[in-house]
């Protein structure tokens, strides 16, 4: 357990010390909200109707953007190799890194959603529904992301391939995530979303750890 928390603490500390990374991600997230009205027009009614979907797509793309960081640095400097001999199994290490990654890439986006809500003319009700569905859905996105990052860690061009691999797998997350916002069917959608997040974040560390082992071999 000490190793688990130490790893999370290290990743958070490194990111805070290097700085800017989370901020850049938030900036990208907000920028998507800024350019969408240029593309589809500033009509407030239309923006408000599309806003939940836009916020989800923005979150989705921002998270893909930060994916390559997840294992790349530790692989480059040899830490990943040494994690194989840590006091906790590689699966737990992947889980710890995934949690740290969620804290560093998903949480800042959740915090930044009010900005998008204002830009996209969302009312309070749809803002908090969107934020809540993001809160439930982002763990699945991060877990799939960890899998994609692990699979491509030994590739120099991995930064491009991982998103292409993960995107189709994330379709259900997107469907239920956005489905959870619009009234009517939001109950079952929220449950499905939570179920997917739970299942994916339970099993992805195993698949990702397997991929990391193969990559080292």
């Amino acid at each position, binding site marked *: 357990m000490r190793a688990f928390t130490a790893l999370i603490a290290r990743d958070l500390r490194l990111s805070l010390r290097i700085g800017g990374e989370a901020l850049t991600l938030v900036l990208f997230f907000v920028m998507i909200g800024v350019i969408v009205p240029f593309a589809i027009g500033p009509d407030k009614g239309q923006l408000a109707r599309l806003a939940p979907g836009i916020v989800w797509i923005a979150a989705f793309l921002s998270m893909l953007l930060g994916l390559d960081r997840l294992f790349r640095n530790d692989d480059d400097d040899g830490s990943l190799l040494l994690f194989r001999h*840590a006091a906790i199994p590689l699966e737990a290490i992947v889980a710890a890194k995934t949690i740290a990654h969620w804290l560093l890439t998903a949480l800042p986006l959740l915090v930044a959603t009010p900005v998008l809500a204002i830009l996209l003319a969302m009312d309070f009700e749809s803002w908090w529904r969107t934020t809540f569905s993001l809160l439930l859905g982002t763990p699945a996105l991060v877990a799939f992301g960890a899998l994609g990052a692990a699979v491509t860690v030994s590739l120099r061009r991995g930064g491009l391939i991982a998103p292409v691999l993960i995107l189709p797998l994330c379709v259900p997350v997107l469907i239920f995530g956005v489905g959870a916002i619009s009234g009517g069917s939001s109950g079952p959608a929220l449950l499905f979303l939570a179920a997917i997040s739970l299942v994916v974040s339970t099993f992805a560390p195993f698949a990702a750890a397997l991929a990391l082992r193969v990559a080292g071999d």
Partner: protein
Amino acid sequence: MSPSHALPQRRLKVSGLCCRRGERLLIDQLDFEVAAGEILLLRGPNGAGKTTLLLALAGVVRPEAGSIALTGGEADAGSMSDLHLLGHRAAVKPRLTVAENLRFWADMNGGERALIEPALVAAGLAHAEALEAGHLSAGQTRRLALARLLVAERPVWLLDEPTAALDSDGELLVGRLLDAHLLRGGLVVAATHHDLALRPPVRLRTLTLGVPA
């Protein structure tokens, strides 16, 4: 760091080991044994498979055939957390301080924080502990990587070019660390081009790997 404190006894037995890298069979039918308190030096030209052998011993590279057995102590004690691997890359985070780097590895490897200070002293980095590791020279980074071996006590050390990037002072340091480790009943496999500065009554064996045909 009292040398009297003994490490769990381990015995490494390799038989019929074959390892392939890509298409090439780098290691072909290798047999050897290393006992507690012994050091095995791996020699051979570049590309002879020294690093591959170390990675195979570390359980990273899966051998094509043969077996690697690490025995002793408690019945089949957790193999992976029994050994330290020191590779080419230092696994040092430049934006963490020297002490933070060590504390992280102490936590990761189930070591003791009380060992951090003595390890820094032993590695000759005591003056630099509050410095960000990015400011260290290549030799100092190497010393920090060596200090990592000391913060979590493990009986088996697998070292790949332990003296790389070190000056003559550093080479002496490696010798001292190895002497102390062997004295406590540790087991070392080291790939190296240089002679290590070991103190004489040392149980040393050499294994020369050739370039495969």
